[in-house]
């Protein structure tokens, strides 16, 4: 399949939009009608054809526009990309992982040619054709992590593993849900998770860390996380809170369907071979409420999840003030019928909305 890349923006006029294809494959994160934190990790070894889980690094219609947005964020704030000196080798590992995966998974879009240490990388959507020497930084325009993550959707945390812990010692973070790489740099797993409510007491982080420390080469894992974003903004960083925080107050019953977006992160974990570091790509997918409501199952379920979410989570995720307005909107799409288990929309088998008006 060839992908039509959208010409769109994630700022100013917000021309971002999802095609019918993108809506159908949107990674709706709720497999049942309620939500609570859990140690929700599973293997990342493919998934249903066409789904966002199928490939190691999913490429979709937003690719080119997302990369343009990343370049703008970096131009304003270079500290969104940082790598401590001992993480350069991990950067090369990541570059190799992405180049190999993308060229194998999308041969019509990406090509990788090796001649011993001389590598040629062709990225057709972005019009890049570069030749460089593997492990020689002077032959690339940026460090290896920055070079490849300027060409890959999603944020990237590169974690050094030592002392039975993971350390956020490198990253490319421009599409984050209100946290800061510059602040978290050098922190360990428990330190950067400190602001999260309830999960510590539930023992989730302790168990999750044990699992992550054991992730092995060739056996990647994944999990989902989600939040809410008003307007299709990729860069919801604390650094720019003054710009996007106030947009939360612009919601009205009339515009909520198009302005309010469910923001889903597909998070994956790969062990890196040379450095023994762990890379944590966080891929962000946005979908407006009105597009989600085209799937009856998602309409019913989203209403129930948002309604019953514990106050602590709605507060932490930053939508407690807008929750009543969201529920007024979403309740129109919940007729009380049961939903089928699992995340997929099942448009063929799920009953249509049975509600007048």
């Amino acid at each position, binding site marked *: 399949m060839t992908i039509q890349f959208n010409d769109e923006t994630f700022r100013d006029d917000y021309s971002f939009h999802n095609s019918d294809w993108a809506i159908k494959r949107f990674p709706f994160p709720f*497999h049942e009608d309620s939500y609570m934190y859990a140690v929700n990790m599973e*293997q990342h070894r493919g998934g249903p054809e066409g789904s966002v889980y199928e490939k190691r690094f999913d490429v979709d219609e937003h690719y080119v526009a997302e990369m343009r947005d990343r370049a703008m964020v970096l131009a304003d704030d270079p500290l969104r990309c940082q790598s401590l000196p001992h*993480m350069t080798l991990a950067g090369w590992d990541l570059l190799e992982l992405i180049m190999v995966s993308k060229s194998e998974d999308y041969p019509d879009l990406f090509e990788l040619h090796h001649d011993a240490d001389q590598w040629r990388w062709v990225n057709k959507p972005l019009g890049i054709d570069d030749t460089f020497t593997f492990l020689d930084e002077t032959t690339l325009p940026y460090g290896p992590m920055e070079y490849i993550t300027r060409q890959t959707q999603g944020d990237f945390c590169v974690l050094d*593993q030592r002392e039975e812990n993971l350390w956020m010692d490198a990253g490319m973070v421009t599409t984050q849900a209100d946290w800061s790489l510059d602040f978290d740099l050098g922190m360990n797993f428990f330190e950067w998770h400190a602001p999260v409510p309830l999960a510590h007491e539930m023992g989730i982080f302790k168990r999750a860390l044990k699992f992550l420390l054991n992730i*092995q*080469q060739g*056996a990647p894992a994944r999990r989902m996380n989600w939040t809410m974003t008003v307007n299709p903004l990729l860069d919801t960083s604390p650094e720019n809170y003054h710009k996007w925080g106030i947009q939360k107050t612009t919601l009205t019953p009339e515009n909520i369907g198009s302005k309010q977006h469910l923001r889903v992160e597909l998070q994956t974990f790969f062990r890196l*071979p040379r450095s023994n570091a762990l890379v944590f790509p966080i891929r962000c997918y946005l979908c407006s409420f009105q597009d989600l409501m085209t799937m009856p199952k998602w309409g019913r379920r989203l209403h129930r999840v948002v309604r019953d979410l514990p106050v602590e989570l709605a507060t932490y995720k930053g939508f407690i003030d807008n929750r009543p307005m969201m529920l007024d909107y979403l309740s129109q799409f919940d007729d009380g019928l049961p939903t089928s288990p*699992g995340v997929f929309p099942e448009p063929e088998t799920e009953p249509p909305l049975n509600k007048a008006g």
Partner: protein
Amino acid sequence: MSAAPQKAKAGAEQINVKVSAVVPLNDLVTRFEFQRTDGQRLPTFSGGAHTVVTMNDDGRTRLNPYSLMSDPTDTSTYAISVRRDDQGRGGSLFMHTRVKVGDEMQITYPVNLFSLDLRAKKHVFFAGGIGITPFMSMIAQLERSNGNWELHYAVRTEALGTYVDELRYKFPNKVHVYYDDQSQSIPLEELLDGQPLGTNAYVCGPKGMIDWIHATAAAAGWPDAQVHSEEFTAPQPGKPFEVRLCKSDKTIQVGESESLLEALEREGVEAPFLCRGGACGQCETDVVSYDGEFIHRDHWLEPEQQAGQKIMPCVSRFVGASLEIDR
């Protein structure tokens, strides 16, 4: 809880390989080299990584971990070195007596539980006997990145000094060898004392040596995090015992020369594992009830967990009237 559920595979990914070389190094140690049967490249790995080799010993499956000792950037061939252990359970004997060039075997993807701290200004390696193997790949890795390292290597006799000649020839100023039969020993206190700030120490060898280096370094004020060790507890044979598996609703026998983990696998019970050496924590299993004594041999559980809460089936055993576990 899962987005797109799939049948989970237990343990690490397997690679089909054929034996490309068998090189006896001395009376006790032989090197085995592997290449992929499909002609593809092997995964790159990091210095200190190991692989678990599957051996089909007349219908009995043996799984032994060995450090990868080849250059991590050489993805055409992996090498391991195996010391024959006439007392052990037979994995090493099988390798020595049965494995020939051209044989097909299965190994896991590399797993690293003993990696370099890449922040270190200097790396000091302490090897005892066959404990030299992980340092071979670490040295190759550091040589490529101009890393600062030195090796202190204790061997029994000159004849048993595996890789001594090669190491001394290539790195005459960095390699120091000590012969037990000539009453030479590593001048540990002196060595630990003279290191620049930011040095990390690594030890691989017999348990006594590991304990000695940890204790001496601690007494000399070294932070624990800067002293790294790897000790594979080779799964030890023991008396047969019976286990009740409450989830699978089965009672099974663990034989004399198999581990509890191997017995679970033989019975087709889903049992996660990675290192098979009591180090990684993956096989941690809850004890439901017991009447007897545990023989814990892992490096993972806390003492209070070992007091009747948990068992690591890859290395630990049980003696007594009854044991019930959550598998």
